[in-house]
């Protein structure tokens, strides 16, 4: 069985985000991590491999050379191979162009199951994996919290308002990982030592058979207009005086100032 894991490198969840004078995020001194939901995806792939045995896990990512660190970590955890799409023309796009580039990569390798995270914690985007499945025209189950894979099909559990929904689909298929799916492992030292010897392939636009117009900012349907930090939160206001007056004042403030009722 061939499993593909879609992986994004993101800022550490504890990183303090700052903007420079042009409103670009300052990336110096920021710690990078594997997007936590993608780590669930990777862990699940490794568990399937441990259970079924004959599985090859390929991790696919797109981004600057720095992403190699995240891929090495994925290889150290237990992935077999990795591919990094590293080409300036591929960057600066949107979810659509990312999905086009990733799906074009995936078409070149055999796959039975694709696993991604349900959302990227940096830009909050939760579309790429879904779009990849659409382009490849394979079934998908999102926000999966439990997964059972057999030879040619899978059963995926997802939490819905009234309880748990179990969806069975035939392979090839794509699922996105939700928190709760598993607890990712630490990369063991043996894995760290082996990771150096595993394949980390770097591909560019020419390898994908796409044109410049289809990818990056040229192919994007979305454009980022501006970036800004949320306004610092003001201290709360305490109303003093008679309770009956306070309630009236509170209702007025909620209606007229906070505009939430």
């Amino acid at each position: 069985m061939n499993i593909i894991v879609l992986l994004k490198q993101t800022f550490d969840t504890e990183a303090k985000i700052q903007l420079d004078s042009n409103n670009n995020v300052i990336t110096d001194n920021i710690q990078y991590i594997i997007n936590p939901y993608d780590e669930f995806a990777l862990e699940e792939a490794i568990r399937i491999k441990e259970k079924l045995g004959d599985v090859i896990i390929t991790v696919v990512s797109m981004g600057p050379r720095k992403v190699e660190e995240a891929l090495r970590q994925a290889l150290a955890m237990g992935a077999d191979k990795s591919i990094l799409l590293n080409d300036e023309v591929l960057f600066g796009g949107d979810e659509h162009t990312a999905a086009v580039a990733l799906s074009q990569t995936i078409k070149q390798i055999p796959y039975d199951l694709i696993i991604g995270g349900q959302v990227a914690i940096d830009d909050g985007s939760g579309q790429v994996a879904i779009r990849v499945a659409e382009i490849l025209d394979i079934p998908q189950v999102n926000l999966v919290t439990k997964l059972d894979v057999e030879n040619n099909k899978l059963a995926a559990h997802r939490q819905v308002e009234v309880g748990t929904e179990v969806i069975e689909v035939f392979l090839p298929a794509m699922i996105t990982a939700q928190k709760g799916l598993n607890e990712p492992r630490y990369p063991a030292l043996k894995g760290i030592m082996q990771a150096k010897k595993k394949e980390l392939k770097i591909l560019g636009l020419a390898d994908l058979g796409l044109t410049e117009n289809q990818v990056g900012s040229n192919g994007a349907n979305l454009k980022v207009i501006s970036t800004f930090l949320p306004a610092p939160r003001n201290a709360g206001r305490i109303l003093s005086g008679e309770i009956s007056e306070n309630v009236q004042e509170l209702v007025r403030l909620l209606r007229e100032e906070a505009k939430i009722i």
Partner: protein
Amino acid sequence: MNFNLNEEQKMIRDMVRHFAENEIKPVADQLDRSGEFPTEIMKKLSELGVLGIPIPEEYGGIGSSFLSYIVAIEELSRACASTGVIVETHTSLGSEPILDFGTEEQKRKYLPRLASGQIIGSFGLTESNAGSDAAGMQTFAVIDGDDYVINGSKIFISNAGIADLTILFAKTDKEKGVKGISAFIVEKNTLGYIVGPPEDKLGIRASQTCALTFEDMRIPRENLLGKVNEGFKIAMHTLDGGRIAIAAQALGIAQAAFEAASEYSKQRVQFGQPIGKLQGIQWHIADMATEIQAARLLTYQAAWLKDQGLRYTKEAAMAKLFASEAASRFTSRAIQVHGGYGFMMEYPVQRHYRDAKITEIYEGTSEIQRMVIANNVLFR
């Protein structure tokens, strides 16, 4: 010159740091209070391969650099100095002598189990009348047929409470001083091997330090490590490496205290501002940051020399001396920054303060380190 860790060393550091922050730091105060051995943590560290970092792959280890191991000890000690010294004693003192002086058979027999954490190692050198001066050793080993019969006792043996294997030093020639000492590999289930109760200590309280007594203990002659009467050389060589790891332990403790003090100085408000804005506090923070960095460079340099196969005796002693004294000074300073709160058991700085002291004492006191350094500077 290159001051960077390589990719492998960085990955090992990040993994151990991540593990230590999530799995060890939250229970470190509890381990300190109870003096309980961190069984679960050690099991997980074994599974991750942390107990055999510098041991070559062919003997079941990870086969990474000595510097990787040093960085791991630093990170473990930053979360819990007890865990740091348990792993240090096991690796530097319990495993490395077999790697460096063992026969091929001894290496194959013991190293895979040590490196995988299946068995834990310790080091029996110190005696009540033989601390810094090993010549005064009163444990004797006498040949009887195919065995050595050993009688005597050791004190302050780190890991003794839980160790499965001890590198034991005993006199094989009563007439000679340090040149009459030999080293032996002793397994704990040997008849006549008696472990005392854990000592009640000021710091590193979760490390099981005990006395060992040997009563007509018989071990096969093939358990001699290295050559007869060359035990002192083995001990000194082993401690040279161990000292770099104790420097790393001190560094981890100092780093933890420094981080606590920095964080506190940003939170604590007095005179209408965070105390970190006051020059008096800033000078403490600046001194700590500078000297910890210096200690780290000395420690990593000594480890690097060892990795290159170069002489490192003097540098190991310098790293240990400087890092341990910095740790003692700055854990005290970190309490000072915390004021009265730092004196309370509720804040972990008091634990760092208590843990730091031993790094100036074990594996060669600061005075012995100065002796080693002076001898190397003046007479080599």
